[in-house]
């Protein structure tokens, strides 16, 4: 049987903030169990502070769960075997402003284990797919927010990951950029890649995802499939509002 792309089992994450006397604890997610199947597009919706970014970081091994188990393709997220199959786009990614996009991508490609002709090919292909080729001669300092987001996506695609974890991939973008990125993500999914994306934009998630997880104060409030929200009179938005109210 194929291992799920992502599996959370009773996961809890509590942040500890040291204070002068003792510490302050804040539970970001609790009792969280869900799976993302290979090749599936899963959306993650929730209000600010619902735990969306925490979930993304737990999948990518940037955070360690306080309790429960997270697995990525059957491995711990900290394992090299898991990381090699995951591409991550954080919210508002940063790149050194003085370099050109190909140089920034080459660095991240090397960190993904690419070198030589394979690296050049991966950089060229990522730039082509994300529409960055016409801007190849510019320095990153000259990039608009939309171009930076495309570059963020390009670095996540370099090593042809089986799972893309995207934190607010269309946040703050103009309609044309949103359209392009949506088309790109649909194309990547058609190639069989699983996509796990969080967003504040219900309509975007609605267009791309086949299943949506709705988070409320760190807990999974509802799991809604495309068939369910298409059958609902108010669509996904109504189901979301009902879940978070």
């Amino acid at each position, binding site marked *: 049987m194929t291992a799920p792309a992502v599996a959370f089992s009773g996961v809890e994450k509590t942040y500890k903030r040291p204070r002068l006397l003792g510490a302050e604890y804040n539970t970001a997610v609790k009792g969280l169990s869900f799976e993302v199947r290979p090749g599936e597009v899963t959306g993650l919706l929730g209000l600010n502070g619902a735990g969306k970014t925490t979930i993304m*970081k737990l999948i*990518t*091994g*940037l*955070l*360690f769960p306080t309790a429960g188990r997270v697995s990525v393709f059957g491995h711990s997220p900290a394992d*090299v075997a898991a*990381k*090699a199959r*995951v591409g*991550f786009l*954080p919210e*508002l*990614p*940063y*790149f*050194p402003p*003085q*370099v050109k996009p190909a140089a920034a991508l080459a*660095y*991240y490609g*090397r*960190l*993904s*284990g690419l*070198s030589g002709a394979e690296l050049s090919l991966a950089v060229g292909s990522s730039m082509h797919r994300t529409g960055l080729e016409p801007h190849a001669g510019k320095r990153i300092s000259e990039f608009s927010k939309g171009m930076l987001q495309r570059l963020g996506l390009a*670095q996540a695609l370099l*090593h042809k990951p089986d799972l893309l*974890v995207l934190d607010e991939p269309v946040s703050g973008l103009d309609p044309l950029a949103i359209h392009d990125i949506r088309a790109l993500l649909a194309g990547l999914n058609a190639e069989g890649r699983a996509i796990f994306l969080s967003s504040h934009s219900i309509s975007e998630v609605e267009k791309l995802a086949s299943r949506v997880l709705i988070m409320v104060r760190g807990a999974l409030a509802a799991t809604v499939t495309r068939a369910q929200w298409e059958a609902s009179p108010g669509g996904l938005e109504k189901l979301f509002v009902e879940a978070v109210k």
Partner: protein
Amino acid sequence: MNSLFLVRAVAFNSFSESVRNRFFTLFAVFAFTAVYASVLAGVMAVDQESRVLADFGLALIELTALAYALFGASSALLKEAETKTIYLVFSRPVPRWAYLAGKLGGALLTAGLMLLIMAAMHLSLLAFRGFGPPPFYAWALAGTFLKLAVIVSFAFFVSLFSTSAVSTLVISSIMWTLGHFASEARFLAERLPGLKGTAVSVFLWLIPNLQLFNARDAAGAAAAPGPAVLLPAAAWVAASFLGSLWLLSRKEF
């Protein structure tokens, strides 16, 4: 995947970013001004001009390189965490030790380049005044580089638990100063009675003895430090590296 390939990628990226940063140029300009201003001290020294220019220049080189290296080292990891660049690194199959070794390597490469640039300025000044390089010159630079390696790796360690780059800078500067009085401090500690003396002596062994790398001190006695000083330098760098790795492996982003 070859981890050494990853170390090299991180090191060269770190080196390239630091050299492109305007602070590199600013420090180089400052060093140029300071080294060439020392010509005044040389003129005042009359018949000891060569000696004063050499000593003054080497001291300025060491202090400027220290300031530059500490400035870079204390913010290297913090900046990557603040800008979230580290997310793009640690979400990839990059072992934390390889990242840390790469960042440390990059910081030392940059500090080494800064040292070489300042040495070139200094030697040009000596040539301009009609003097050749002093016989201990290469050892003095090597000693300074070893001090930088020890203190930069210590700064990396401190930066992983301190709350700001400024506190890392201050703590590392204090360590650098203490390191130049390590022998005297150990001598005094040996004279302290009982448990107090033992406790102070143990604490003092944690402080790197930077006097070991002072080629300028030894030059008067015509006995510059030999290759044996590489061992204590490597031991202090390794200890700081292991401490840093222990902290980094537990760190969440």
